[in-house]
């Protein structure tokens, strides 16, 4: 089934997904997402009136446990993989947020 995703749609989605793309990638994804979504449009022919959606198949009920304090990751370990961190202060560092 032919289906078109435009390059401006791809650019809008890339902005939402926080992924920088170059021109050729935008073109490529427009074509490939169009192919995949075009294929998936076959679902439109399936009658789903009165069919509830399935979000998960865990099949479990809510369970309770005592609200007890348990050990968790210490701050040094939590920071050890950060690309930039101020370990004495216990903080992750990021580039400036406001201009």
């Amino acid at each position: 089934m032919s289906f078109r995703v435009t390059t401006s749609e791809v650019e809008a989605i890339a902005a939402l997904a926080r992924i920088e793309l170059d021109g050729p990638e935008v073109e490529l994804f427009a074509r490939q997402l169009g192919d995949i979504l075009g294929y998936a449009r076959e679902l439109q022919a399936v009658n789903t009136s009165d069919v509830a959606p399935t979000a998960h198949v865990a099949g479990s009920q809510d369970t309770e446990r005592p609200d007890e304090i348990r050990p968790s990751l210490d701050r040094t370990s939590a920071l050890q993989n950060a690309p930039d961190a101020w370990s004495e202060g216990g903080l992750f560092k990021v580039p400036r947020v406001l201009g």
Partner: protein
Amino acid sequence: MSEAASVRGLREQIRSGSRSATEICREALATVKALESSLHAFVTITEEHALKRAAEIDKDPRRWRDKPLSGVPIALKDNLCTRGIRTTASSRMLESFLPPYDATVVSRLEEAGAIIVGKTNCDEFAMGSSTENSAFGPSRNPWAPDRTPGGSSGGSAVAVASGMTPVALGSDTGGSIRQPAALCGLVGLKPTYGRVSRYGLLAFASSLDQIGPLARTAYDAAVVLAVIAGADPADATSTPTPAADYAAALTGDIRQIRIGVPWRLLENGVDPAVLQAFRVALDVIRARGAVVEHVDLPHAKHAISVYYLIATAEASSNLARYDGVRYGYRAPNTADLGSMYARTRRLGFGPEVKRRIMLGTYVLSAGYYDAYYLKAQQVRTLITGDYQRAFDQVDAVAMPTTPTAAFRLGERTADPLQMYLGDVFTVSANLAGLPAISIPCGFTQEHLPVGLQLTGRRFEEAALLRLADAHERDTDWWQRTPELGI
């Protein structure tokens, strides 16, 4: 396969004291080293860690001798967190990530005496069906090195099929254990959703992901499953339903077990050699007393569409955490936070991961949500209902695991949709949360392995393993090994 190279054989050697864990470990590491350059099963080989663990086991036989996996070398897919051992998910994004904790399956394996010899190559973040999406290069199929081992747990399949380790763990979101098991001639089991804790598994699609074993025999898979299965307070989706004694279920008695075959689903697109091997496997099972009949799964043909909408939607959310702040790669020299995020994700993720994040973001975005994501969730309900009805009639559903045997490296990389369509028989077990196993059931004329897939009722892994073991007793496909020139 020599008996000595199986979990059963190694466990006996440790128990009787005829070989030490260190000897077994050194032998496994030597095989890894001899074959790694030609097959590329691993991202990281943990030689030092493994030998240290083996020495601990040898030093205290009273503590370790009777543990279910005492001294057994195992390979772990590199999306399972190992404390202090690099865990990359085959992504640049996590190239130097050192987890501060172990996945629950990892601590359970080590408590059971298993020795981790390395972290295996996979498609980046488990997204793919060939390991060609690894940032560190593809793995190669031991049966035909110009072909893929399948994926995404391809490295784990290569490690077991080439005799590096008797067992490995993989993860399966849409077939990523069963498809490489089929393409490499192994047993691969995706347990029921909730059977095995995912704590410490790098999340791809949380309503679908499960961890499971790849092995040479049903028995070895059963022993590993018994070790890793069971409730875990750290994973709210893990079930309180107790795990069974899976090895004890392997009685060989499959009389009156009813097997359903959805013949209509197999009418198009299945390679004749695969179909032929599948029919022979059904004859083998029938000859042992099982009953084979037709079953209808009218919505299973929609499973690929449903899967690739739901899995990518969940992935787009799960992979939002890779933003260059708390762990992983960060792009250098960016002007502000927003451009740091976008460039980090540009440089840290490979093309397939970006494609899936984009697709998932698209189907969740305003205006498209109902037409794609909600529709897919509704058809997921119908697919699950098909299986529920089928299991009123039969005890297991049989299909080929894949429509074709192993394909050539590069053959499907240019067309992502073509790659996705190969997952047609595996994805529905994930959508319905059911256990499914792939077992070796023959070879094509080009000597490529073919897999039989059996899907069962929720939490009935024991029934699938019993069928797998019964089929093994009457065939020798599983005993064949690839020629590796060592």
